[in-house]
């Protein structure tokens, strides 16, 4: 009896306290609704609110849809078929994520806008002038959607890829024995089974689109995010800005709840006794070429073209490379992103597992709340992190002065701790959703079997789930790492003195419209992202390789669901 008590408290404690801390910024935002700002809302409603809502929704759905289509298709081909170049494409497909959206926006604008080389050439060639011809306007809502979808589809791709490759071969055999072609199997079985993963990726892309500031701002599209900044900094009304953020978050919350509700009865683990991985199918040469081109397109547009443009710009400033400050920039970025990735994946594993163990509202609520942080613009979250931390620091300082006559100053805020905390809040959604969608594919009897053999609940996590979740955990690590690498708003505001990152550097130069100077750090973000990709690529690949009888390290390819 006492055992049960302590266990219960253990998981509650392990989850509740960090989850509440992580949820705090989101709660700070939501707390704003208690200070009604009637007058300003009236103004917003009469003027710009409709625009904000429509644009934000279009932006998020457009981006989400695009990411879904690109990510799912590429993931399917990469996980199911063997074709020339698959091994390389498989991780190249992740790279566009490393491009800050506003940077890719700058590069495309540079090429495609009215003053850019393409249109200038057209005008010169056909002696047209402004208004004589139609050309798609890159700096438009449609343009933002395309830019965002080019850099955000990797969320869907990564999650779907591990979902597809972990699907049990026996299910595809079952549908084939019932006469389904591979395509029909994809639509009727593989896709619905990967649904949690795919929709999670899509939700991440949508949340990021909701929270995007740089691109919409540059393209002159008014969304909730630009509205929040305008209201906060321009109108100087912080509560109203937070209320806008709360409204935005509510949209996301409703979407997420609907999705969960619609599949509440479904489970995604395979009931079978055996875990046979599906072997990748081989293709004819012609088809290989087709698939290669198909999977290459997102890389071409999301990575190669913009990176070449950046490369051209950067070539002019290559001396910067030899600046020692530049090395510290690389190191800061890399180490911070690595820490953030590890911390947020550990948190995600703990939270997701606690939810699996005890599906109580007590645990679900704070965890879910914390995971909403992703939909809130980074600056708002950063302030939400800073306010409670500084409050805590100041109170510790006061107490210490009262009791011991010493001043402690700022212990947490303004330290790397604050930054890591902010990253955790911001990226918990990414890691948690990846891990959860993987966990849903492990059947509960695995846990039960281990526990009946005397493994404690935490041993189940380390000895059973972790190895089985390898694909999902690697995915989460990579996604958070890359995301953290280009994280800007929280870094900007929370970092300690004299601490710079590549993203900050890129942003400062780009915001001063010095694109050529911004190109090198921007490109470096991509290059640094390559490091973990290369380190983890082996793990990713064996992950989908149908294990062979001689392979000594078979992993969990088919706990599927």
């Amino acid at each position, binding site marked *: *009896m006492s*055992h*049960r008590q302590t*266990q219960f408290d253990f998981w509650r404690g392990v989850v509740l306290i960090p989850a509440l801390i992580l949820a705090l910024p989101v709660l700070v935002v939501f707390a704003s609704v208690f200070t009604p700002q009637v007058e300003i809302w009236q103004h917003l409603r009469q003027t710009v609110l409709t625009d904000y809502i429509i644009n934000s929704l279009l932006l998020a759905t457009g981006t989400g849809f695009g990411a879904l289509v690109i990510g799912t298709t590429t993931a399917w081909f990469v996980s199911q078929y063997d074709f020339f170049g698959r091994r390389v494409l498989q991780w190249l497909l992740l790279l566009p994520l490393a491009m800050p959206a506003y940077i890719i926006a700058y590069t495309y604008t540079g090429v495609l806008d009215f003053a850019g080389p393409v249109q200038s050439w057209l005008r010169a060639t056909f002696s047209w002038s402004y208004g004589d011809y139609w050309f798609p306007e890159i700096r438009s809502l449609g343009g933002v959607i395309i830019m965002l979808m080019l850099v955000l589809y990797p969320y869907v791709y990564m999650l779907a890829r591990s979902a597809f490759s972990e699907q049990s071969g026996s299910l595809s055999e079952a549908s084939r024995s019932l006469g389904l072609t591979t395509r029909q199997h994809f639509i009727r079985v593989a896709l619905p089974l990967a649904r949690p993963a795919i929709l999670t990726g899509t939700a991440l892309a949508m949340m990021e689109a909701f929270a995007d500031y740089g691109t919409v701002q540059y393209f002159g599209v008014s969304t909730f995010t630009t509205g929040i900044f305008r209201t906060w900094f321009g109108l100087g009304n912080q509560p109203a800005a937070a209320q806008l953020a709360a409204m935005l978050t509510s949209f996301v919350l409703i979407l997420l709840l609907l999705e969960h509700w619609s599949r509440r009865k479904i489970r995604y683990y395979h*009931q*079978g*006794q*055996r*875990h*046979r*991985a599906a072997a990748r199918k081989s293709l004819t040469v012609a088809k290989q070429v087709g698939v290669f081109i198909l999977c290459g397109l997102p890389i071409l547009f999301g990575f190669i073209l913009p990176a070449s443009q950046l490369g051209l710009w950067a070539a002019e400033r290559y001396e910067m490379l030899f600046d020692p400050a530049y090395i510290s920039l690389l190191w800061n970025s890399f180490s911070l992103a690595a820490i953030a990735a590890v911390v947020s994946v550990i948190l995600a594993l703990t939270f997701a597992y606690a939810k699996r163990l005890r599906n109580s509202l007590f645990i679900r609520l704070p965890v879910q709340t914390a995971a909403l942080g992703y939909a809130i613009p980074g600056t708002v979250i950063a302030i939400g992190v800073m306010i409670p931390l500084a409050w805590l620091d100041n109170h510790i300082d006061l107490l210490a002065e009262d009791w011991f006559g010493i001043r402690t100053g700022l212990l947490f805020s303004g330290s790397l701790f604050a930054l890591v905390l902010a990253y955790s809040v911001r990226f918990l959604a990414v890691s948690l959703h990846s891990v959860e969608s993987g966990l849903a594919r492990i*059947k*509960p*009897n*695995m846990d*039960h*079997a*281990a*526990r*009946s*053999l*005397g*493994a*404690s*609940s935490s041993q189940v996590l380390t*000895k*059973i789930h972790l*190895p*089985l979740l390898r694909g999902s955990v690697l995915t989460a690590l990579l996604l958070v790492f890359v995301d953290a690498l280009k994280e800007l708003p929280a870094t900007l505001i929370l970092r300690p003195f004299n601490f710079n990152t590549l993203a900050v550097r890129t942003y400062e130069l780009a915001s001063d419209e010095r694109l050529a100077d911004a190109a090198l750090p921007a490109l470096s973000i991509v290059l640094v992202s390559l490091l973990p990709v290369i380190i983890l690529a082996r793990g990713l690949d064996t992950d989908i390789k149908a*294990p062979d*009888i001689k392979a000594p390290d*078979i*992993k*969990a*390819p*088919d*706990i599927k669901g």
Partner: protein
Amino acid sequence: MLALQHVAIAYSADTVVKDVNFALMPGQIGCLLGPSGCGKTTILRAIAGFERLKSGSIVLQKTEVSSAQQHINPEQRQVGMVFQDFALFPHLSVADNISFGLARASKAEKAQKVRQLLQLVGLPNLGNRFMHQLSGGQLQRVALARALAPEPKVLLLDEPFSSLDTDLRESLARDIRDILKQLNITALLVTHDQHEAFAMADIIGVMSDGELQQWATPYELYHKPINRFVADFIGRGVLVPGTVLAEGKVETNLGIFTPRYNNIMQQGARVDVLIRPDDIVHDDSSPVTAAVVEKTFRGSHILYQLKLKSGEQVQCLALSHHNHAIGEDIGIRLDLDHLVLFPV
């Protein structure tokens, strides 16, 4: 040692186990029989601690481990389980699966134990294989070995031999029974094979629809079923209508019988008499004959479905040398030792 008291278990609103009571002494082997979906696995899962009780309690070695209020974690119960779906760990080799529960053992001890258990289940050379490289029956044996390895105080076996061929099943059942007895492990087995239950269990529970119908020794269960369900479920048989005469004798179309035990039935009461296939002995020389309606070849025997002159159908198990055609009339004789009656 293991006692269930008024145990009820529900999935959401569905109560699938209702008021189940039974107890096993240390070292005793119990068995649950019952139709598919009657709640056998659910009971095992509750004992292992994977399902919570709606009401009632489960006591293990004098400790209440489950009740509506209280729930001790599975890993603290020392209850091993062979899962119906095996639940083997796909990321571990056969040997690692088996040694999984031997957390505290040394490397050499583990290897020794694994070798021993692989020998027992007849897979001596497959220690390095992974789960997707095994056949169904091999998987099942690995699951069995894994559950045996830590020598739990209580072992729950959910259809542990269902994927094995008869020979292997019987020899393995015998070996495992020996091990259980030797280590004084209390075991609860679920099986659909009644012969296996009879051979292995000290005591058997028959369940239906979430309720425990009878908890008794194999012999009692077969010969003194407590109700129609048990009579029907265990073994074969048909119920033939009859009437109670004076002195407790019973009259049916097949003749008049004297119950060995005193059935407290009123004279004139209408009853059903359970006639098992082995109560009807095929005897070519008997004057009573019946027509073969259906026959099933069962190796050593042929099971005949017979139609009596009076129209009633009964079954008869004859040695398979007596191969008669459908439609043929064959001689039968009644050899009714245990008269089982149910009031109509």
